[in-house]
């Protein structure tokens, strides 16, 4: 066989799909389920770079024949990804309203709804493929989050691919996947590396050393194919070397085109390549023939992103700058349609062209911000600022403030604060007093979020004074609101009320809707905080006004206010309703700053309801995001779940909660943490530690009828200390218990919907029946330490025959193996011979022979290896 035919045959062979039958079957089954039930599903396809995710889906699409029902979208590794990139790809094929909404710059929730509507009524199931979501922008993930939840409504299989080896613990996609959790309509497919056998089959036509190929590639399909296609006598060490070896076999001019594609791509249009390289179309033939480049209509792309990386990394700096500059010039005046801002920004940065950076990057950032892609917007502003040293101070300050605002939305408060401080410095230099005041007021909010109330209060007051001198307008209302909210954080509602009232009067005078809504919410908050029902009504009215006016941040903020205030007052149903409404509202509306805070509150609400699995799950979601104030609540919920169950390590979360709460210097953060720590110490039987755990929460002004304050009194009492009950809190269920009215306390807790606290209140009882009820409830809840305390009290009172715990669930033994066979099975699975098993179980070898053949028969397998695999699959080995 000649070299070229051998290589052609080999190329065909490498593109055959090996060892992906199971994954193709999984996709097939999903599609069949969707078609049969008309109810959609989501498949997550994960694998390392080069695992063959795209190839798998291409194969699946081809097997299904017709292409008109397949919609594809891609994410690209640009320095700041195109906002909603994959949905822009889909839009042309999906058509209808979705395309209009996207070009109009609609918000993610509107786009998700449109997508779902468009997929409905297509007559047959659609396949929506979204690729490489590890590079997705924030707005895309918002659409995905909503669409994933609503895909059940339509007949569609949505497939999302991502590189699981590139998701750090806080990658937004990982958080999203965690939130999706386990549900019937979600299927996870992970692409394993190829086995040695498969690698050997691929290597054979090349006459390559299969063991060496396998050792070098670890079975990564892409690396295997590159390595074999490189055709070098020496096997290259890395993927990149393998790719470059393959490229080296092309002519110089063809390599030039490869480089241009790598810079212009991921998808490079033919017209663009014409502008970058002489005779591009002639060179293209060979590039496609080499198998490195694939063509799709009027654009081309590398067959794999890893190859593009390798080629791009090997270009000389000088040539790279030139290619970026040429691409920038060409893309600024495309033959059709409007220039693509994200790409202009990308190439401006790549070309190191300061003027172009300052022209296109802020514009791209503003567009990303408008679409809700805040992370991308922030990183674009940051990029623009790198070249902004020579800009006029005012323009620089504008960029800095916009960057701060974007960072705020995805809870990077430290970056926001740093940027805002620089903006303030610019305004000071300019002597712009009003802007200084407004910027300082906003900075005070950021300083507060990062954790320093005292400094924030000082700034807010200074800003109010400064603005007061110049403005009678919105800046002044905003400054008063800021002071009022911080006074509330300092637990001084009377002072807060004064400021809120001034803000409200001024706002009404101005008649500017946003100022009116903001002041109304703040005044309502102060009133509701002190228990006035009128305050709640005022906030609810503000929500209606804000909704009608489309003030999205205000709507979400008002739900947050009601949730946290109601939860503190133990009005759990009210809090739960608003947490839910707030989350629904935030979803897809680029208001992530409140999402994780609301989820943290939900976790505390579930804890109060005794639903510990849910509390722990929600806490986990919230902790996936580095939002400092959401973390404290989530950590308290997680620590208490562990402490109440008697699970290991309640103190890691509780220690972190304390460490984050202390520097904030606020009662609202420190008191719940201190109470939780006192509770955990009590459950561990360390009653003497309670006093010192409560110490940090003392010394704050305390009001009557505040559950945060009564909890401190209660735990002091449990710790054998003087409770010092705050006045006016006699009906608080905790203090009823302190007063010995345990039955009444338990009733109160039941009415509040708190089964754990109700059972705990009965522990103080002197009545055996009540104690037994307490014990039984605590056992049902899985509250091991508290149940042990109840049981000890009963035993001390001479009770006998206490239940040891609720009846446990047992599980099915699907294969119907006997007890003896179940004993033999794990030994067999470990690979032991019958003689060994016989010795272990002290029976004759003949008996073991019988058992083994019975096991093989019942599991319907031929070999011992298969028996082990089948037993694992059935869960027969993991049930012990």
């Amino acid at each position, binding site marked *: 066989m000649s070299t070229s035919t051998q290589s052609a045959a080999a190329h065909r062979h490498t593109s055959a799909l090996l060892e992906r039958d199971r994954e193709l079957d999984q996709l097939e089954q999903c599609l069949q389920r969707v078609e049969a039930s008309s109810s959609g599903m989501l498949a997550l396809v994960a694998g390392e770079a080069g695992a063959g995710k795209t190839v798998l889906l291409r194969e699946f699409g081809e097997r299904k024949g017709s292409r008109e029902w397949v919609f594809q979208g891609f994410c690209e590794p640009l320095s700041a990804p195109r906002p909603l990139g994959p949905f822009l790809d889909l839009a042309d094929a999906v058509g209808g309203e979705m395309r209009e909404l996207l070009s109009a710059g609609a918000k993610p929730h509107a786009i998700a709804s449109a997508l779902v509507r468009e997929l409905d009524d297509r007559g047959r199931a659609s396949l929506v493929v979204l690729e490489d979501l590890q590079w997705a922008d924030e707005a895309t993930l918002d659409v995905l989050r909503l669409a994933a939840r609503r895909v059940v409504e339509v007949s569609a299989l949505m497939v999302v691919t991502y590189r699981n080896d590139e998701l750090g613990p806080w990658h937004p996609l990982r958080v999203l996947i965690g939130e999706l959790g386990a549900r019937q309509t979600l299927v996870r497919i992970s692409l394993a590396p190829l086995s040695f056998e498969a690698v050997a089959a691929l290597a054979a036509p090349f006459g390559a050393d299969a063991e060496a190929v396998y050792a070098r590639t670890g079975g990564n399909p892409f690396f295997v194919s590159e390595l074999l296609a490189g055709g070098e006598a020496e096997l290259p060490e890395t993927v990149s070397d393998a790719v470059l070896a393959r490229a080296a076999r092309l002519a110089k001019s063809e390599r030039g085109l490869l480089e241009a594609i790598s810079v212009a791509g991921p998808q490079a249009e033919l017209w663009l390549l014409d502008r970058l390289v002489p005779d591009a179309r002639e060179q293209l033939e060979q590039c496609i023939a080499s198998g490195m480049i694939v063509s799709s209509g009027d654009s081309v792309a590398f067959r794999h992103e890893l190859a593009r990386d390798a080629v791009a990394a090997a270009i000389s700096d000088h040539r790279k700058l030139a290619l970026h500059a040429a691409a920038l010039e060409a893309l600024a005046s495309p033959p059709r349609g409007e220039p693509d801002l994200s790409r202009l920004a990308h190439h401006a940065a790549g070309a190191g062209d300061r003027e172009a950076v300052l022209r296109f990057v802020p514009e791209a950032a503003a567009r990303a911000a408008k679409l809700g892609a805040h992370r991308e917007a922030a990183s674009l502003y940051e990029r623009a600022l790198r070249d902004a040293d020579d800009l006029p101070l005012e323009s620089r300050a504008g960029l800095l403030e916009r960057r701060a605002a974007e960072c705020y939305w995805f809870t990077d408060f430290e970056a926001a604060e740093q940027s805002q401080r620089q903006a303030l410095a610019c305004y000071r230099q300019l002597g712009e007093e009003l802007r200084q005041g407004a910027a300082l007021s906003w900075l005070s909010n950021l300083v507060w979020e990062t954790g320093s109330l005292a400094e924030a209060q000082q700034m807010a007051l200074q800003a109010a004074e400064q603005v007061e001198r110049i403005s009678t307008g919105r800046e002044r209302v905003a400054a008063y609101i800021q002071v009022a909210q911080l006074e509330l954080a300092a637990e001084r509602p009377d002072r807060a009320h004064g400021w809120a009232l001034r803000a409200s009067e001024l706002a009404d005078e101005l008649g500017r809707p946003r100022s009116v809504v903001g002041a109304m919410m703040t005044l309502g908050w102060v009133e509701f905080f002190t228990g006035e029902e009128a305050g709640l009504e005022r906030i609810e009215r503000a929500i209606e006004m804000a909704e009608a006016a489309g003030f999205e941040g205000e709507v979400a903020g008002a739900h947050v206010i009601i949730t946290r205030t109601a939860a503190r007052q133990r009005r759990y149903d009210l809090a739960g309703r608003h947490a839910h409404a707030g989350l629904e509202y935030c979803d897809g509306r680029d208001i992530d700053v409140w999402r994780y805070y609301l989820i943290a509150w939900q976790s505390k609400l579930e804890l109060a309801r005794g639903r510990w699995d849910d509390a722990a799950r929600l806490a986990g979601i919230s902790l996936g995001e580095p939002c400092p104030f959401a973390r404290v609540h989530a950590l308290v919920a997680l620590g208490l779940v562990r402490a109440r169950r008697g699970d*290991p*390590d309640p103190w890691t979360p509780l220690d972190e909660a304390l460490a984050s709460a202390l520097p904030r210097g606020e009662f609202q953060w420190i008191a719940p943490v201190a109470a939780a720590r006192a509770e955990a110490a009590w459950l561990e039987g360390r009653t003497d530690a309670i006093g010192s755990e409560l110490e940090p929460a003392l010394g704050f002004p305390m009001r009557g009828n505040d559950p945060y304050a009564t909890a401190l009194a209660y735990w002091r009492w449990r710790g054998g200390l003087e409770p010092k009950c705050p006045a006016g809190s006699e009906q608080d269920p905790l203090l009823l218990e302190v007063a010995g009215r345990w039955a009444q306390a338990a009733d109160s807790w039941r009415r509040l919907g708190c089964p754990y606290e109700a059972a705990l209140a009965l522990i103080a009882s002197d009545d055996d029946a009540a104690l037994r009820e307490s014990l039984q409830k605590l056992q049902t809840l899985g509250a091991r330490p508290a149940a042990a305390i109840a049981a000890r009290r009963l035993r001390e009172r001479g009770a006998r025959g206490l239940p040891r715990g609720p009846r*446990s669930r*047992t*599980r*099915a033994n*699907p294969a119907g193996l006997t007890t003896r066979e*179940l004993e033999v099975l794990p030994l067999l699975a470990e690979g032991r011979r019958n003689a060994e098993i016989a010795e272990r179980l002290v029976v004759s070898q003949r008996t073991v022979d019988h058992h083994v053949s019975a096991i093989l028969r019942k599991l319907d397998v031929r070999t011992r290896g298969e028996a082990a695999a089948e037993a694992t699959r059935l869960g027969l080995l993991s049930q*012990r």
Partner: protein
Amino acid sequence: MPRYMVQRTFPEGLQISIANGGAEVCGAVIERNAEEGVTWVHSYVSVDKRATFCVYDAPSPEAVRRTAARNQLPVDRITQVRVLDPYFYS
């Protein structure tokens, strides 16, 4: 990764099956364990088969409980443990 000892009680003994969980449900067990990053190391079973002591490597106690719930296994008590080797000192 922390190691945990998980105590489980099976009042009727391990071999009693209450309902047919179905092969499909069971087939997902391995994948579920892996999804939570939980590895079952090995177990000790009491002679009367009513109690098991199972050693797991898991990222958190919640992960142990989640896999237990998914696999329909009871959990009485989770203890974080380390290995003590008596011959280490000899």
